[in-house]
């Protein structure tokens, strides 16, 4: 009942893709969420809608747009290839990009809410004590938004692990390169006598999701306690 090397490869690839997608999108998400929570600028509504687009668009459409933009001959893809010799199309990095885009709205939402929940008066107090904009952000806004950031990271990570439509459209289903857990399960369901394999991988996916949920719950609770000086459960 041990995990086969092939399963291990799928699992490792999925974790790698999800990890990098979160790592790369996190700083951008924090910046955008802060902007949306605090700044008012013309076109904010449109910008907000654009950020949320991956949430409502069919994933296949996102994958196709990524293929158009980042493909070997797409405007961004050819530029990346020309200047940096860097290709994302049909690579695991492309899978990470697709996962990042699909998880972005979820991450933004959680982080933005926690920025919006911060008492602005605390920030005013910080500025009277000598903190400039960046100082206020780093010492007050960011630490107080930590529970929201942890939640956002987890949601986006889970979304990345489960990403299917955009990934298969953008980077195809290449074993060892872009065949993540959902893609592998899909492949087995399309193979005669692949049911047992599909079920085993599904079990792995369930265990993984539960573990992620558990870890996030612990982290959020710890972060909240750190901030408020008491256990959030105590209020319920």
């Amino acid at each position: 009942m041990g995990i086969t090397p092939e399963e291990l490869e799928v699992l490792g690839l999925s974790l790698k893709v999800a990890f990098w997608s979160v790592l790369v999108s996190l700083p951008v998400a924090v910046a955008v969420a802060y902007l949306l929570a605090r700044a008012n600028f013309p076109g904010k509504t449109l910008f907000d809608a654009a950020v949320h687009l991956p949430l409502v668009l069919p994933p296949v459409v996102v994958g196709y747009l990524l293929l158009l933009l980042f493909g070997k001959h797409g405007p961004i893809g050819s530029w990346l290839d020309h200047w940096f010799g860097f290709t994302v199309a049909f690579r695991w990095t492309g899978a990470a990009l697709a996962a990042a885009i699909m998880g972005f709205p979820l991450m933004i939402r959680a982080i933005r809410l926690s920025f919006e929940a911060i008492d602005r008066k605390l920030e005013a107090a910080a500025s009277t004590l000598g903190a400039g904009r960046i100082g206020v952000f780093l010492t007050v806004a960011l630490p107080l938004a930590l529970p929201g950031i942890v939640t956002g990271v987890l949601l986006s990570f889970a979304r990345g692990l489960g990403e299917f439509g955009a990934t298969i459209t953008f980077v195809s289903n290449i074993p060892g390169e872009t065949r993540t857990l959902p893609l592998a399960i899909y492949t087995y369901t399309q193979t005669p006598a692949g049911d047992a394999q599909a079920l085993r991988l599904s079990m792995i996916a369930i265990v993984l999701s539960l573990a992620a949920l558990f870890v996030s719950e612990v982290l959020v609770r710890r972060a909240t306690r750190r901030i408020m000086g008491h256990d959030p459960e105590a209020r319920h």
Partner: protein
Amino acid sequence: MTLKLDIERRLGAFRLKTAFEAGAGLTALFGRSGAGKTSVVNAIAGILRPDRGRIEINGDAVFDGERGIDVPTPQRRIGYVFQEGRLFPHMNVRQNLRYARLFSRTPEQAGQFERVLELLGLAGLLERRPGNLSGGEKQRVAIGRALLSSPRLLLLDEPLAALDAHRKSEILEYIELMRDEVRIPILYVSHAVEEVVRLADTVVLMSAGEAVACGTAEEIMGRPDLRPTSGTFEGGAVIDAKVVGQDMQYDLATLAFDGGTLMVTNVDALIGEPVRVRIRARDVSIALERPRRISIQNVLGGNIAEVGPDLGGIVDVSITVGSVTLRSRVTQRSAHQLGLAPGLEVYALIKAVSLDRRSTGAG
């Protein structure tokens, strides 16, 4: 050390148009809720931008509408203690107190941290989180945090508003101590007469967005024409006096002021110490001759300066005693029967004296 301010700002239908100067010691910005007091301190701190005008600290403009000067809040070096404390919930008391050090480029004065801890009694709270502090403790930490930012001016915006009576008197004592020990001018916002009389060297009276009067606590509280504005203040006189004798047997202290002496019970002060007392108009009766065989200890001779307008069957009479003006509230009928008129020589019978302040601080 002076704060000079002359600003205008429109806030919806409300118009703030205030000008005053404050010197060393504690200046109270006094007036009813909605008079614009918090807007004034927010403008000084740079949180509220005036439409026009000028704010100057020590001759140094932090805001000047005409010359386009608007020093950002972090660079103004003004300590601000907010009504609700506003401690950072994710930091313990030590980190809150040390917060300003993160952004300061000047080295800390040796021993300053310890001095503030001692002054405000914070040493035992350092590792606690704001969530586990009482209201009074929170305000003490907030005051300490503002002090440790090495401010040029300290703003306290109704720091006692959220506290119960017991905590209030505790914090008042700390504020008194701070006023006397720390040589930083303080602007203290309050709508409570007792706080203002007890703490203030100078009082700026605000009403409907304007500073309507400015002077010593004695002057402002004593002026009957300001009474509708000073509002909560019950008419009376504020007198600065000095302890000249203590009678242990009767627990009576003799206080001397420019105009005579007062005998007051339960004065917890040493001979020679300055004190401030308040005598309410309704605790003063008037006699045309010095009464004999009477329980009242304090009888002062003086002349009537003014008989006030009819306040519905009662009038307030001003009596000059030395350089001090006492007020007496009597019925219209007794004013007529006694023939009270300016210039008349009378005796003020004082039934109660309340002690407001042990020391007059920087003054």
